[in-house]
């Protein structure tokens, strides 16, 4: 546990000691602001909720989360520090979990900095704050799922750009499987059971509940299993590299 903590600390310090982190935070906040208030028609909706804010998250994270996670393993492999890290008395799973947690915390910080949106709706109206809390929780898990997938793609290559593109593509599949235009298209020729099965693999389907203020155990299990599966795959990929 100590080892995990040490690596998390190192990763976080490394995030915040580079200007990239601050650039990312600013871009993240600008984009959430833009999507919520301009593209999301926040004011025209006439309701005190953050639906306009959370609704965009699956799409926003599609680009931003892979940008945070793409360096995680690709950089370690490229610079040779992977050899250093894995010859320390550290079990590979500890390193994998620690690096994932550090990036997840970083995204959590970015998400927490959107608190002015919460203040805004509370000033303007009387929103259901429980729903907002559920939305934030769902959003955080959504980011975690994307991030774990990015961990996996980052372990596949030494090249951060390749890792970025691969994870965008994979995450896009997870969105599209439950995206209404796609499910409608699918429903025209496939039987409803198949459509539901495909949609069940989508992050959008599982994120919906959180947005409506429902914290469903099944949705949590879904996100946690995506994270667990992707991190497990990361472990296998790294073991594969070491075996040569």
């Amino acid at each position, binding site marked *: 546990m*100590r*080892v995990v903590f*040490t*690596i998390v600390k*190192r990763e976080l*310090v*490394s995030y915040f*000691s*580079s200007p990239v982190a601050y650039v990312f935070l600013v871009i993240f906040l600008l984009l959430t602001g833009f999507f919520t208030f301009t593209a999301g028609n926040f004011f025209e909706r006439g309701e005190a909720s953050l639906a306009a804010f959370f609704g965009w998250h699956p799409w926003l994270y599609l680009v931003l989360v892979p940008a945070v996670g793409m360096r995680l393993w690709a950089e370690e492999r490229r*610079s*040779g*520090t992977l*050899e*250093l890290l*894995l*010859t*320390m*008395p*550290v*079990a590979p799973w500890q390193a994998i979990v620690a690096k994932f947690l550090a990036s997840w915390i970083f995204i959590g910080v970015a998400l927490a900095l959107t608190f002015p949106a919460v203040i805004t709706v509370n000033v303007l109206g009387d929103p259901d704050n429980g729903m907002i809390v559920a939305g934030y929780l769902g959003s955080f898990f959504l980011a975690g799922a994307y991030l774990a997938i990015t961990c996996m793609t980052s372990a596949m290559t030494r090249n951060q750009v390749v890792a970025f593109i691969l994870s965008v593509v994979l995450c896009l599949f997870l969105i599209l499987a439950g995206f209404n235009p796609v499910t409608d298209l699918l429903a025209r020729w496939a039987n409803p059971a198949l459509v539901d099965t495909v949609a069940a693999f989508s992050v959008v389907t599982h994120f919906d509940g959180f947005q409506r203020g429902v914290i469903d155990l099944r949705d949590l299990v879904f996100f946690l299993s995506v994270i667990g599966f992707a991190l497990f795959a990361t472990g296998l990929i790294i073991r594969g590299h*070491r*075996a*040569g």
Partner: protein
Amino acid sequence: MIRIDNLVKSFGAKRAVDGISFTVERGEVLGFLGPNGAGKSTTMRMITGFMPPTEGSVAVGGFDVAESPLEAKRLIGYLPENAAAYPDMTVEGFLNFAAELRGLSGAARRKGLHRVIERCFLDAVLHQSIDTLSKGYKHRTCLAQALIHDPDVLIMDEPTDGLDPNQKHEVRNLIRELGRNNKAIVFSTHILEEVDAACTRAIIIDRGRIVANGTPEELRAMSEIAGAVTLQARGATAERLSELGRVEKLNGAFRIYPKDKSRQAQLAQEVVEMVNLHGWKVEGMYSERGELDEVFRRITLPDTVKK
């Protein structure tokens, strides 16, 4: 401390390491020699637990690296090839990170840090970030990381690569000193003078196999010219000298090879007697100890290239 048993590593069809066995005891400094691509780095990566072997086993301090990797890794300090370190960290931050991963905390960590900073001369760059360091400092930072927990086993992949002659000298002295401190040390190099400068024993590997294993003296004795006498004397002739053994003419000197290895010891005496008998004027005379690079070339070159 290190016991390697029939180690094999295959990459696809290629056997990078092909059945290597050796042991290293405390107090030994083992030089690991071989041409590029001979399997030196791969062997070291298996010793340090970075790569699992295809066959065979490695035990460090009695712990099998495959079965109890954490216990084995705790005993090892490792300087990887090219001295990798996190470029965005400061030297101090990096060493603290290494110390914490090694389970050092509080006073023990400060002590360890202090020791390696002094030993690797890192005082001046402590608060500098690693990507701004010169190659020599970067190298020493990574070496400091390997020493921070005062390990019993030290594995170094080309510890003097890319250093200037003064730094090379420092690192060799450090290796020798650590060897005297009862540690088991393995380092790879392709600089032969380093073997003389720092090793108690050397192993030469070629295409994944051990081709020679012995003290630097023993390896040198494998040289063709070992035991020969080189004589530079006015009046000396090859005809006369050939009574003692095969004679090779060098410029202005003769090299006499003993007729067989058992007569090596008497050869110098016999040459002196012949010199006295004929009244030659000696300008120089010495017994050859053998040359490591000749041995190295002879046993690592493919047969077709030899001679």
